[in-house]
């Protein structure tokens, strides 16, 4: 086919998409900016979650814990210590990833559903803790912390766009690498992997920490975008569940599943919310059930099975 080979077309397509996304702030309305920023934030959350849980099979029900802790560190630095957002954000992410190394070392010995429950317990406990009187001098307790970071919307947009790209790139690289295979082996049969020479503890903790860093960074940006943080907002179980649902929607364990899921889901959410506000949540619950019962591999998984997409790890 000459110069019009598949690979070339894909690259051209990606380049156009990239150009479109980068120039977005110059022509988009506020409504569309908001929408796209949310899509990008949730892309980071979903991809970050999938990087650990989709590959290792350890269901992390504590995504909100990553988001909340990093969000708090970053927001407090901006609001109370006048740190510029450029340094506050990575600091929040760094903090949560360091803590995650320790937490991962302790909690990743627990398997299956119990791990999921313990992460929920951790998140709930931290939420309560951040709301108590003891920590109020630092965290502002239940009152919440409204703040302004002095960042123009377009700059925030470009930041989250950049983070989303980096996150997807990391997922792409890892999934088709030996490290990614090791994580998958953990999901398939952890003990057998151990007896085949794979240091599963190290692999798990590494993936967990990386996930926490990326998601934490997204969380810091998210809180800055909302100009507000309080324990219920920051540690809300919805922040854990929505990215998981998005990932399941798009295809768990794949590279682009979470992106696809985040995008489609946000659009569907917008439509449903506008048309059927009252029954919105009930329908959401119903969709979840249908998804699990009939499309457990998500959209991409379904497409791969039907042969519409090649069955390779790279996507």
């Amino acid at each position, binding site marked *: 086919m000459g110069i019009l080979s598949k690979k070339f077309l894909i690259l051209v397509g990606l380049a156009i998409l990239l150009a479109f996304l980068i120039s977005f702030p110059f022509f988009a309305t506020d409504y569309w900016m908001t929408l796209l920023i949310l899509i990008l934030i949730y892309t980071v959350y979903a991809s970050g979650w999938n990087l650990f849980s989709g590959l290792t099979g350890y269901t992390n029900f504590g995504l909100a814990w990553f988001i909340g802790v990093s969000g708090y560190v970053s927001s407090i630095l901006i609001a109370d210590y006048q740190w510029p957002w450029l340094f506050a954000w990575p600091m929040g992410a760094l903090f949560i990833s360091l803590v995650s190394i320790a937490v991962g070392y302790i909690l990743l010995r627990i398997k299956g559903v119990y791990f999921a429950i313990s992460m929920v317990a951790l998140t709930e406990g931290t939420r309560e803790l951040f709301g108590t009187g003891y920590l109020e001098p630092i965290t502002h307790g239940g009152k919440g912390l409204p703040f302004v970071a002095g960042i123009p919307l377009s700059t925030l947009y470009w930041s989250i766009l950049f983070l989303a790209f980096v996150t997807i790139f990391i997922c792409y690289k890892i999934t088709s690498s*030996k490290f990614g*295979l090791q994580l*998958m*082996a953990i999901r*398939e049969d952890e003990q057998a992997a*151990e*007896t*085949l*020479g794979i*240091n599963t503890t190290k692999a798990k903790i590494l993936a967990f920490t990386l996930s926490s860093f990326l998601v934490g960074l997204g969380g810091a940006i998210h809180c800055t975008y909302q100009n507000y943080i309080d324990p219920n907002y920051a540690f809300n179980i919805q922040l854990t569940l929505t990215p998981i649902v998005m990932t399941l929607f798009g295809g768990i364990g794949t590279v682009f599943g979470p992106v696809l899921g985040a995008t489609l889901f946000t659009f569907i959410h917008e439509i449903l919310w506008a048309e059927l506000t009252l029954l919105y949540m009930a329908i959401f619950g119903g969709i979840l059930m249908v998804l699990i019962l009939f499309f457990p591999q998500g959209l991409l998984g379904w497409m791969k099975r039907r042969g519409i997409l090649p069955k390779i790890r790279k996507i």
Partner: protein
Amino acid sequence: MGEAILKVDQVVKRFGEVVALDHCSFDIEKGSITGLIGPNGAGKTTLFNLITGILQPDEGRIFFKGEEITRKKPYEIARMGIGRTYQIIRIFPKMTLLENLLVVGREKGKAVVEKAYELLHRVRLYEKKDEDASDLSFGQQKLLSLAQVLMLDSELILLDEPAAGINPTLQNELMELIHQLNEEGKTFVIVEHDMKVIMNHCQKAIALNYGQKIAEGSCSVILKDETLLEHYFGR
């Protein structure tokens, strides 16, 4: 009598009140093929679990190539050179055959892929390299499992009932391969219930019952041993 590649020394393992292994001791000679026999529940799989580090003995020690491995982690022991297959096959079902091997290999880049290809050719599964491991037949999965162990360049290979559940032709192929590998210097310990397999392929046999070693010696002697027959068949 060659050097001992594996030394199991007075090993005891209890599960609550049940004594699975009771002061078990033996050496495995380097380059040998040894059979491990005994009725169900005798402690054979537990022994394998202790050697590979999945479980820790309550008493006693285990040495590999002169180094103590009693308290080492499974992945450390595997990297030192002990490989093991399971009674119920444990490969990675939702990964391709190639991936099943790549994930084990310790080399980098092209080298590990080359090695994987080579091993796939050796077990005659190269054509299926991009298929999911779950699509293989039972016998093919056994071969894949062995190939995984070979990716590690294991010097001591523990096989848990390798001949069980596969047709005689495949059995022969498998045992052929084991002999080839043995000639290349690999040591084998094979758990088997099929006495013909033990007779035809092992130089030496160790018999266990109720967690104790009840006999050890060359195959022909062992399998005529009256006490042993009594243990097995309750005569």
